[in-house]
């Protein structure tokens, strides 16, 4: 009997132990998007004949998470890639896959990762599906927090280019210290938050050039400082303001590449911003100096491929089609740019504010080339040129912008915008023979709510210029029937084109159905290249004529 009792006890103990195995259940989620287009050749608008007639971009993400572990992959399919995207995106594959284990203070990722050091001046791996930009690092990424306020990151791998990786090996390290968090006992009374950071990134690429001795290991380092301070404006009401200062300096040793013309000059970048804000008012000032900071894991790469770093453009990002007609992109070889933006709210009930208040944004941004002195030493040292810090040369871009937003009645809201721009097409688009293009752009965006479900948005825009393709006028009407439907029609008319046959109406329409996280939208008509926002979402769209289809969902 004693033996049986023991056996019984062991069995029940086993049952109890089985009950104790509490593995939290894993979860699977994902999202996908398919963009397809049927192309009609249209020489008048410059839409080329597409041999496949219809093109498709598609991708699907699947993520598995279970407690501290997560893994995911992305399947991408370009059969073939749509017009306006890099044609090297061809075929299908799984270019992105990773597994991560996060043990609280230590997180390890193997496979593909995205990360950023500081503002990205020496390292930023990220993706933008709208541009098909993806320089994910394929290798190892470690994030470690050894003590409160100390954040360390390390990366080692190769960057994704299309369905393969670029030849260079990238290794990097970033450390950031929040002094107030680290020394919290003795800094408890310090009102300013002080955050220091430093990064070092090195790339290795074998030298296969027969003519030049190219450096195989190129290192870039950066240091940054962020100071944040709250200011009490009114002791009685507790009204506060905040000042935020950010400054970063980066230095890269000699890195001859196709983009910089194979010169041995080192690269430097300075980026700084000061922001002040309080309830109802915000002010931002930012300046940037870039000198020879093209940093890629393939020195022969051009376009958007194999970039290791990210040089933010200090210009206002526009999404209204004619406002975004002349967009600016940072010139890695050299530029000096600055931006000032002030946003404030005129309170409701005041004379200027009106019944509901008025929102105003003023923005001034400008970019210039470097005032550089060419050294004419191509035969020998190949240093290229010299340039002073923040000394502007040729004008590249300017945008003086005002935006007024106002709710007029309970059902009527409107935004009025005006911008005066200068656009250097030769430098920004790599063309030649164009003068500096001045353009005046005005936008009026009005929304009228008929009922709780039905609303009509009308967008009227005008771009005036005597240069380039001349002036444009745009009219857009978008009817939304909440919560599921939207219908939109748009006409962009290039009435100012010097060539009469090119004074074309780009008319197109779109209808969409939305439900939860799914949307399906079908469009037809002519599209000019640009960024368009319709039905609640913004995307980059190239010029074309035909049917478009977008299906997106997540689960």
């Amino acid at each position, binding site marked *: 009997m004693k033996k049986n009792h023991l056996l019984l006890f062991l069995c029940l103990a086993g049952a109890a132990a089985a009950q104790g195995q509490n593995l939290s259940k894993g979860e699977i989620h994902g999202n996908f*998007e398919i963009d397809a287009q049927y192309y009609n050749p249209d020489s008048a608008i410059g839409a080329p004949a597409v041999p496949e007639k219809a093109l498709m971009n598609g991708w699907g993400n699947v993520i598995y998470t279970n407690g501290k572990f997560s893994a995911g992959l992305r399947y991408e399919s370009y059969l073939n890639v749509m017009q306006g995207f890099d044609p090297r995106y061809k075929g299908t594959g799984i270019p992105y896959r990773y597994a991560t284990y996060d043990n609280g203070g230590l997180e390890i990722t193997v496979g593909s990762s995205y990360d950023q050091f500081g503002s990205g001046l020496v390292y*930023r791996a990220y993706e933008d599906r709208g541009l098909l930009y993806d320089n994910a690092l394929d290798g190892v990424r470690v994030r470690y927090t050894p003590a409160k306020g100390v954040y360390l990151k390390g990366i080692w791998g190769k960057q994704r280019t299309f369905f393969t990786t670029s030849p260079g090996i990238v290794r990097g390290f970033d450390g950031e210290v929040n002094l107030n968090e680290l020394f919290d006992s003795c800094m408890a009374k310090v009102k300013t938050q002080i955050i220091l950071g430093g990064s070092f990134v090195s790339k290795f690429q074998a030298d296969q050039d027969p003519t030049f001795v190219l450096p195989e290991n190129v290192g870039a380092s950066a240091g940054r400082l962020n100071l*944040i301070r709250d200011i009490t404006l009114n002791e009685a009401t507790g009204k506060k303001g905040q000042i935020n200062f950010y400054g970063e300096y980066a230095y890269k040793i000699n890195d001859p590449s196709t983009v910089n013309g194979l010169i041995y000059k080192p690269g430097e970048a300075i980026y700084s911003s000061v922001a002040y*804000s309080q309830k109802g008012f915000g002010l931002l000032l*930012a300046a940037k100096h870039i000198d020879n900071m093209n940093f890629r894991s393939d020195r022969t790469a051009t376009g958007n491929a194999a970039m290791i770093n990210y040089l933010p453009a200090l210009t206002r*990002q*526009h999404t209204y089609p004619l406002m975004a007609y002349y967009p600016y992109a940072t010139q890695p070889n050299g530029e000096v740019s600055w931006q000032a933006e002030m946003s404030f709210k005129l309170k409701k009930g005041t004379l200027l504010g009106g019944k509901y208040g008025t929102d105003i944004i003023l923005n001034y941004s400008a970019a210039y080339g470097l005032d550089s002195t060419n050294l004419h030493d191509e035969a020998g040292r190949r240093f290229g040129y010299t340039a002073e810090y923040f000394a502007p040369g040729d004008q590249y871009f300017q945008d003086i912008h005002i935006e007024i937003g106002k709710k007029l009645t309970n059902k009527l809201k409107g935004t009025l915008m005006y911008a005066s721009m200068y656009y250097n097409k030769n430098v920004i688009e790599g063309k030649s023979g164009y003068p500096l293009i001045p353009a005046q752009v005005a936008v009026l965006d009005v929304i009228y709510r008929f009922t709780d479900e039905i609303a009509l*948005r009308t967008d009227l825009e005008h771009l005036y210029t005597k240069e380039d393709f001349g002036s444009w006028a745009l009219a857009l009407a978008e009817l939304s029937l909440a919560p599921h439907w*939207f219908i939109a029609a748009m006409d962009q008319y290039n009435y100012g084109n010097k060539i009469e046959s090119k004074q074309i109406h780009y008319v197109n329409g779109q209808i969409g159905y939305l439900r939860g996280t799914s949307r399906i939208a079908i469009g037809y008509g002519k599209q000019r290249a640009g960024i368009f926002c319709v039905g609640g979402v913004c995307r980059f769209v190239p010029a074309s004529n035909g049917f478009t289809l977008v299906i997106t969902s997540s689960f």
Partner: protein
Amino acid sequence: MKKILTLLAFVAAAGTAGIAQEAAAPAQTNTGQKVPGVEMKTLDGKKFNSADFKNDGKPIIISFWATWCAPCKKELNAIAENFEDWQKETGVKVIAVSIDDARNSPKVKPYVDSKGWEYEVYLDENQDFKRAMNVNNVPHTFVLNGNGEIVYQYNNYVEGEELKLYEIVKKVAKGEKIN
């Protein structure tokens, strides 16, 4: 007799184990997806982990937005117009996560302050939280119930959407199920 008792004990144990597993299973199963723990920055420069989102058992709205996304700003401004009433009635909290990168993230605090939003705003500059939450593009808005589980989400904004959002929030505040 001894053999039968042993056999019975075995079956009982196996049965207990089986029942124990089944009894444990519903407790282990998540009735809804919880928000993954990802690090972001506050507007004051400090780090904050999304696993720490709380609202004392009351509903939470998480909305992904960016300073360049006009529909996102329209949605958050439309919610702001009624937010005081929403809070009084349901205690809902709005967490606005900005996916602006280094180019635009310095503009987030000045914009939020100029609009006077009473939301918790976080910066997801590396877009880690956006990826972990399975967000394709913005605006993408989630509603969490009192247990921090995602009960509703949508990926667009049309005029009047915020009224439907509030109907969902009211139901969640009462503890009703959303289908």
